[in-house]
């Protein structure tokens, strides 16, 4: 034990002689871990947003084949037919719990970059908030029917400027008053602006058309009852899926991108591993004579192995920490926005979870372990006759 510590200390003391290489190893591991954690933070944040967004007991109804809300179109007649369908929860007055909605894309100015970015402006019907779990009005009041009033999601307020409650904002050719701010607990709706559907139809010349209907499903059979009804109703041609499924479908592209990022981190890890290997090989190379001398004095081959391995692990662990700290400083808590399924911005928080930090450190240790393995074996088997140089 003592001899192992001594050998390790000797290794570490000699690092300044290979400072450039050792630093390069630390930095390459840091980069790998940073890329991995960066993408994991994206994954975590994105997953949190979309998972919260999707509700199992809400169905989203679109025109058949439209895939996303933006491409869909439903007439007033369609909506009326849908609202009489079975499988939908009805309230005390026997009205279906549903909201026919449409949305348009408007431009907002991002606080961070001062550039324009897309924002969805959604027209909803009374009761839309009952179809969003965790909906709360955190400031102000709801928009009044028929008025050019908006309530804005929390994410919009955070990421975009000019949406403070009480202020007015010009979007396209219309001026709107912001009367309230709502939160759905970090879901995708927090990136939206809401007004009354009728107002939006008017101001944007949409006549009586909608793009989607959201309904509250009545129990586990609700969805299939609704689907059966729509299939047997020749006047309707619809796609009906749960909202959860809808968001999962929308998320596929983004998830793919993130997976590619994590894969990239693994490929980079192989590069870092080669770097660590090379550095440790030089470390052993530079100290063959020292190691042989220690062995002649009576130090074990095992201590030479562990000393080299610990040096490698130490460099990798430092790299891992540097990478994690960098990602933490740059990313954690930051919001990112991205093109969501409807070509609009989905705002979500990047979050660096303890478990992803642990994964990053494991990757770093893995790099150190496998990069150091062969050099360590070489250190343990340095020929004793090398003492004579």
């Amino acid at each position, binding site marked *: 034990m003592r*001899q192992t510590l001594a050998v390790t200390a000797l290794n570490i003391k*000699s690092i300044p002689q290979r400072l450039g290489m050792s630093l390069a190893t630390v930095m390459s591991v840091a980069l790998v871990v940073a890329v991995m954690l960066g993408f994991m933070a994206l994954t975590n944040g994105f997953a949190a947003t979309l998972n919260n967004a999707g509700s199992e007991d809400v169905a989203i109804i679109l025109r058949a084949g439209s895939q996303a809300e933006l491409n869909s179109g439903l007439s007033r007649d369609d909506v009326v037919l849908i609202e009489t369908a079975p499988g939908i929860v009805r309230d005390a007055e026997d009205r279906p719990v549903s909201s026919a909605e449409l949305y348009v894309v408007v431009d907002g100015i991002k606080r961070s970059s001062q550039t324009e970015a897309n924002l969805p402006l959604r027209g909803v019907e009374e009761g839309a908030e009952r179809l969003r779990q965790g909906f709360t009005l955190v400031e102000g009041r709801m928009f009044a029917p028929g008025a050019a009033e908006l309530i804005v999601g929390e994410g919009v307020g955070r990421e975009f400027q000019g949406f403070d409650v009480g202020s007015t904002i010009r979007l396209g050719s219309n001026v709107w008053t912001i009367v309230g701010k709502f939160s759905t607990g970090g879901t995708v709706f927090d990136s939206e602006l809401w007004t009354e559907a009728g107002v939006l139809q008017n101001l944007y010349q949409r006549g009586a058309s909608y793009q989607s209907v959201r309904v509250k499903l009545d129990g586990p059979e609700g969805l299939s009852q609704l689907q059966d009804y729509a299939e047997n109703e020749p006047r309707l041609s619809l796609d009906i899926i749960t909202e959860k499924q809808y968001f999962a479908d929308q998320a596929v592209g983004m998830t793919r991108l993130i997976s590619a990022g994590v894969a990239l981190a693994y490929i980079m890890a192989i590069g870092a591993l080669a770097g660590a290997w090379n550095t440790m090989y030089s470390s052993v190379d530079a100290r063959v004579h*020292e190691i042989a*001398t220690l062995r002649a*004095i*009576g130090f074990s*081959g095992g201590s030479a192995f562990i000393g080299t391995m610990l040096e490698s692990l130490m460099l990798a662990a430092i790299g891992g920490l540097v990478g994690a700290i960098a990602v933490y400083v740059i990313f954690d808590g930051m919001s990112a926005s991205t093109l969501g399924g409807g070509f609009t911005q989905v705002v979500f928080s990047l979050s660096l979870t303890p478990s992803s930090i642990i994964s990053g450190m494991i990757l770093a240790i893995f790099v150190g372990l496998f990069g150091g393995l062969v050099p360590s074996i070489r250190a343990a088997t340095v020929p004793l006759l090398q003492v004579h140089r």
Partner: protein
Amino acid sequence: MNLYTLRDLSKRYSRGGEAVTIFEGLNMQIAQGDFIAIMGPSGSGKTTLLNMLGGIDRPSSGTIECQGERIDNLSEARLSKWRAAHVGFIFQFYNLMPTLNAAQNVELPLLLTKLSPKQRKEHIATALDIVGISDRAKHYPRQLSGGQQQRVAIARAIVSDPKVLLCDEPTGDLDRVSADSVLEMLQLLNSKLNKTIIMVTHDPAAAKYARRELRLDKGRFIEQESAQ
């Protein structure tokens, strides 16, 4: 009393597929407390012999006993422990760790013992005192002259109190004055502390410090008349 007994010792290397014999059927005894100088032409196998006595090389055949224990067939791990307990090496180029100061270099063999830090300090102080370099304990090898570095190396070799000191050209890199003082030191370690010393040297003047000189030539020993 014999410290070493070598029986029918052979050492062969294969060089380019061809076997080269360094020794063949070498028999030899080394008494406890002896101070032997081994001379001989370059390539005659002096270093090879020293390596085998010190357990850092093995004979091709034959046996080496040290204090009645066979060392030629010990496992690597046991041989490491044996070296730590029984021999001190002194090399031509000192083989000090450049990143450790004199005291830390001397401490290395003690890290293989069960001594407490305090006991280690005492042993280090004693060893540095014996070689007369206590005032340089905190100096690093590059801050010391060749003679001083060799003294540190000697302190390291004796600090764990081994029976045998194996020296390969210990003065090969030193000027006459430094060489003489190192050789006097070895003589002192032999006469006062009863260390058995086996020293390889090219220098006839150095060999005169030993109790006896052996000439190694073509794998055979020729004893010279004793010095002193």
